[in-house]
């Protein structure tokens, strides 16, 4: 087991180098000069621009820039934003907690609603509930995220407020800050639902089909023949096997959400890393783009590793190398 984890951790190194190099090449291929952009449409003194390019090593060949960047990262220095002059580390640490909050809130919704709806759908196959779940998942999968967010804002933020004379409504956007009129959780509800919507629909569908498949297998028939109650068959025997693909899907989804969610963050004005990366790409602020993307990539890989290891716990038939067992 530990050998396996060690091996996996070693694999991070080439991936890290590859991603960094790829980002480096990508950012140099995309047209647009980050330094010239600073002054907007006004023509800036070419000497100042040249000095700035030199300070950010932009006047060196890409491979030299790459090596210098690796040197900096080895010392824990992720560089400085060209657009604002702030350190990339500061920007990341400021934004990332918000991305994590939103990702975890969305995953909670995905777990409860997705798995729950899938189970109900499978247990009551072809019932009214099943049809409802199937239809609503189809709908959710095809709705544009920003539109769903916007509609929720209109409904819960404006109309509900008008109908209830300002007694009951939700904040439309933003994150909680000291002195805000709502409790912190209230700010998470709509963005989390929006972010979770598509994945929740997929999770419900996967859960439904898995459970139906498992319930047709021999060992479930055996359990029923033994006279176990339907509930006990479902929860003790069927669920565990049916969960593996869903857990995989949800875990990978968590990884993806931790990379930030540009649309949701923009619509809800959520100060996370996704919008920051988008903004920095717009400004051609390469140090921020590369720095944050690298960290986010590493986070994703760690989650991937955790998912793989967790299989061993979920399913005893899965073993990872090493001299385990007797």
């Amino acid at each position, binding site marked *: 087991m530990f050998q396996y984890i060690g091996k996996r951790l070693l694999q991070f190194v080439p991936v890290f180098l590859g991603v960094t190099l790829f980002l480096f090449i990508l950012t140099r291929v995309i047209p647009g000069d980050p330094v010239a952009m600073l002054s*907007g449409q*006004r023509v800036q003194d070419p000497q100042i621009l040249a000095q700035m390019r030199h300070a950010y090593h932009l006047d060196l060949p890409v491979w030299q820039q790459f090596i210098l960047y690796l040197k900096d990262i080895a010392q824990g220095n992720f560089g400085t934003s060209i657009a604002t002059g702030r350190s990339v580390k500061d920007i990341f640490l400021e934004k990332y907690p918000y991305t994590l909050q939103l990702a975890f809130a969305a995953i909670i919704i995905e777990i409860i609603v997705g798995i729950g709806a899938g189970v109900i759908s499978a247990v009551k196959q072809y019932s009214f509930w099943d049809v409802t779940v199937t239809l609503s998942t189809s709908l959710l999968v095809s709705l544009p995220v920003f539109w769903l967010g916007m509609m929720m804002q209109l409904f819960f933020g404006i109309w509900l407020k008008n109908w209830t004379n300002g007694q009951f409504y939700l904040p439309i956007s933003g994150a909680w800050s000291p002195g805000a009129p709502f409790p912190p959780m209230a700010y998470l509800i709509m963005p989390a639902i929006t972010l979770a919507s598509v994945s929740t629909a997929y999770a419900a569908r996967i859960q439904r089909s898995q459970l139906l498949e498992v319930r047709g297998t021999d060992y479930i028939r055996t359990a029923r023949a033994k006279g176990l109650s339907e509930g006990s068959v479902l929860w003790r025997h069927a669920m565990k096997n049916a969960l593996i693909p869903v857990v995989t899907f949800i875990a990978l989804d968590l990884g993806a959400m931790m990379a930030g969610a540009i649309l949701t963050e923009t*619509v809800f004005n959520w*100060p996370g890393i996704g919008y920051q990366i988008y903004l920095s790409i717009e400004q051609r602020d390469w140090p921020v783009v590369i720095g944050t993307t690298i960290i986010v990539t590493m986070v994703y890989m760690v989650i991937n590793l955790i998912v793989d290891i967790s299989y061993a716990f979920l399913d005893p038939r899965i073993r990872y190398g090493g001299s385990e067992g007797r």
Partner: protein
Amino acid sequence: MHRYLKKTAAVMLSVIMVVALAGVAGCAPSTSTSGGTSSTASGPVKGGMLSFYIGEPEAIDPFNAQESEGVQVTQSLFDSLTAVNPTTGKVIPAAADSWSSDASATVWTFKLHPGAKFADGEPVTAADFVYAWNRIAESASKDATNPSQISYHLSPVVGYDEANSKGTPMSGVKAIDDTTLQVTLQYPFADWPYVCSHPALAPVPQKLVENGVPYNGKTVPFDQMPVGNGPFKMSAPWVHNQYIKVVRNDDYYGTKAHLDGVDFKIFADLDTAYREFEAGSLDFTQIPSGQVAAAKQKYGVAADGYTVDPGHGVLLGPEAAIYYLSFDMKKAPLDNLNVRKAISLAINRDAINQAVFEGTRKAAGSYVPPGIPGYEDNQFQFSHYDIAAAKQALVDAGYPGGKGLPTLELAYNSGAGHAQVMALVQSDLKAIGVNTKTYTLQGAQYWPYLTTTKFQVARDGWIADYPIIDNFTNPIFNSTADNNHSHYSNPQVDAMILKARSTTDEAARIALYQQIQKMVGDDAPVAPIVYYAHNRVGANRVNNLFYDNMGLAHFDIAWLTGGGK
């Protein structure tokens, strides 16, 4: 193993349930954010926080105060030497009580207001101005990773070029004593006091800039929590992409504000901000395109176009900014005046204004926008819609009906409705037989592209640095100007600009600039299209919020109905 796991899962699930329930509970806010509706008959009421939409600023420190978002905050925290009265367009005292110049308008002496203080209680002296200005001018050579982008405001000052390249202090800025600042310029510039109104030229306290600002036992970098000499001060450091809060500065030397403060709410998305406004949790915002008519109906229109009052929320006043086309006059066929004339006369500006801008802007007959002292419409004689004259101009140019004229490239930057404008321009030109092909670039590449000589016809725009006619003349039409995309060069115009700049009598100076504008218009290096206009709206509880033609809100005179209760 598995049993253990099941237990953990059960515990986790119950925790999740509790957390989720806790989140759903308490969705009614603890305080109401909607304003009172009772209006007091008497004058302004003290109190309340005005919430104001901005995009994420690039900077709020005067050091880099350039884009509209950041400048909005900077001007609430800082007072520069002078200010501009937005209704008269005249320059008025701010941190300086009075000023004078020598006969040639090159040596300027400013007398500072005695007893003025920074928000931390330290006195504001002439030395603070000297430090602040040198900080900007020397920045490029002091720290190349983060130079000031706005040092050009100081380029007229003696010693600016050396400061920029060698990092030596400008010899042209001197503190004669604590309240006397002397500025020597490299050339006559009678409008210099207007330049001194820019928020970028505000004084900064050296100690705090260099050591950071103490806050809650920590030290915050100055650019995250600038300390100034203005009517408001920051109550907490800037929270990026969320908010910047400023509160009334009760030690302010001038007239104290009515508002308790301004809550600048930062939004990534205009539509979201507008929904917040509709929900009553934002007092002032931009109207998204397509919603102007509905907003007018719902919130009423401000008669003067600039002042928000209850029932008169929508602001549509012209801005000190112009939307135009630049022609590269260096290359054929656009070196031919008649071709430029034909293009300018063929454009139906009113139709563009109606179709793209919901009729909120104004067709431009001049390059100088309304609200700038000396503005007169129709100074550019070819800046109107006249198909017959346009066709005749093509005949005069030797391309009757467009015959023989190559397809022209029409360049523009993506976004902001430019595509729609350019499509209309294309069809207008097609109508007189001029064929065009469009070329689109993102902003990142677009402005550098205009400084090359590759383009033929290009969308262009200019937003005033200072509300003076010189700012719509010298930076664009002087043959050596950096932003002269047309490569326009007229020695007569250059000489006249120099003469106007050294004319100390204001009326005579403005008259000269008006002549220059006419001369430039006759050469048609650019084709004005529309003057920009506001598209903002204020809530019903907001009174006397003046949002001027430079896009700056005058928070010091605004107040909230019932003090925001």
